């Protein structure tokens, strides 16, 4: 059974419909990447999993359980963690406090998990008493992901984790994503840097105008000339600007 499955969902903000029947799924242990042009509804599709917008049609399933239109605070408790693209840390809290907040819904002792996170992100261990707002962009992203991982989630949703980062950090983030995945957490990720993202993905989706356009394994999509033409700069280098 898929961890997360969107079955032909329709919806948007207010009266503006953005998703016109999007379907996608993430199977256990997978990294799934969603790419597409600006305004294609990539982030919106991800937010729909998290109950951040109201769906008019279609279903969202978590391990087969219907969680359509469940409010975000309940979705978290079901073990789905979401890292937004911006404002994904509490800047005035220290690194450790941020991680603690990530474990807010945990009733048990989260200390062991905290140490695991520090092992995963050694720079954070050094700066645990520093307020998160003073960290560099890449380290903030680590805090954001670490915060989400505190829950030992069933699936991790990442909204453009590399947006605004320099190419050096970008690579670092992708390798972290791979590392998180390798210890067993399935990941659904929206990305602008399609080429790099697809190269670590098990599967990829291409959304255009709120609808599915292409689907395939990461490598298939990279090899697909049409996809390459549209999103990978004709097979050339990935464009610098991500917005």
């Amino acid at each position, binding site marked *: 059974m898929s961890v997360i499955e969107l079955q032909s969902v329709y919806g948007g903000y207010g009266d503006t419909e953005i998703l016109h029947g999007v379907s996608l799924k993430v199977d256990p242990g997978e990294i799934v990447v969603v790419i597409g042009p600006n305004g294609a509804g990539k982030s919106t599709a991800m937010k729909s999993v998290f109950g951040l917008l109201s769906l008019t049609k279609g279903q969202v399933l978590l391990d087969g359980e219907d969680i359509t239109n469940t409010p975000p605070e309940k979705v978290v408790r079901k073990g789905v963690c979401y890292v937004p693209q911006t404002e994904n840390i*509490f800047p005035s809290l220290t690194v450790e406090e941020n991680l603690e907040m990530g474990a*807010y819904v945990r009733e048990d002792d989260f200390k062991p998990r905290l140490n695991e996170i520090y092992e995963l992100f050694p720079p954070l261990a050094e700066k645990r008493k520093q307020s998160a707002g003073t960290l560099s962009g890449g380290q903030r992203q680590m805090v954001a992901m670490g915060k989400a991982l505190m829950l030992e989630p069933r699936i991790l949703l990442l909204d453009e984790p590399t947006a605004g980062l320099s190419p050096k950090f970008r690579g670092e983030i992708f390798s972290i994503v791979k590392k998180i995945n390798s210890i067993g957490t399935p990941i659904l990720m929206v990305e602008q840097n399609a080429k790099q993202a697809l190269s670590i993905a098990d599967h990829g989706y291409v959304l255009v105008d709120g609808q599915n356009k292409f689907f395939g394994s990461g490598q298939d999509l990279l090899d697909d000339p049409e996809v390459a033409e549209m999103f990978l700069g004709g097979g050339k280098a990935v464009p610098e600007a991500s917005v």
Partner: protein
Amino acid sequence: MADFINFYFIPGLLLGSIYALGAIGITMTFVILRFANFAHGESMTLGVYFAWSLVQITGWHPLVVMPIAMILTVLYALSIDRLFYKPLRNAPVVMLVVASFGLMLMTRSVIQFFWGVQLKSVLPGIQKPILVMDYLRISPKHMMIMASALVLMFAVHYLLTYTKIGKAMRAMSDSPELAKLTGIDTEKVVVATWVVGAALACAAGVFLAIDTHVETRMGFKLLLPMFAAAILGGVGRPYGALVGGLIIGLAEEISSYPFIGTEPLLNPGYKAGVAFAIMIGILIWRPSGLFKGKVF
């Protein structure tokens, strides 16, 4: 110099700590519930009247009955939240401001109805100050107020730094949206905010009443300085509110010190305007306040 310390600096500090305690509640509701709570001054007044009644019933010192008054004020704040603010939680925020504006007058009229408008006192009589080092005049009453204020400030500090709910409050004042996504129980944080805000408002009011007297419009008089303190410190920054309150209190008192000649620098009639002037200045030059608060 002795005059400056005795009659300008110490009163300023005292007034400042009262503003500071009140401003913490304002700054927290502003950032967590996202609206400027005009009824905050009235929570303060109500708390004082609770304390006054308790003093009448028990005959104890106002500081002794203060915790009970604080609990009553908290209950009031929570029921107001349930009845009047919660139904508007999903409406545009400015509706909440309108509602709080209405509650300000409603609460005051209830106080005036039940307790009447006659002036009251929680601690009658006068206290001669103790002379320290031959020129510092320190009144025991003021020592008590300052000490209690300090205790409360440390309690707030402890709550915000070392408890889960306190950290959640700080997290939510950083970003309510992210707090929700993180799974923080935002309604619980809202409740905690009212608890802290109302309890501190009650304490600030009682301190003021110990220093002066009990009167139905005392809370409203403090509203503008408290807003100014919250904005000066940076909205959503409880420590900022503390500093902001102290600065506003000191500035109000010191503004009429005769720095030049024997006439007050500023006509004391304009004292109440000092807080406002500082606030406007901050809004022009640094809307995020001294401690990088939220700007909406």
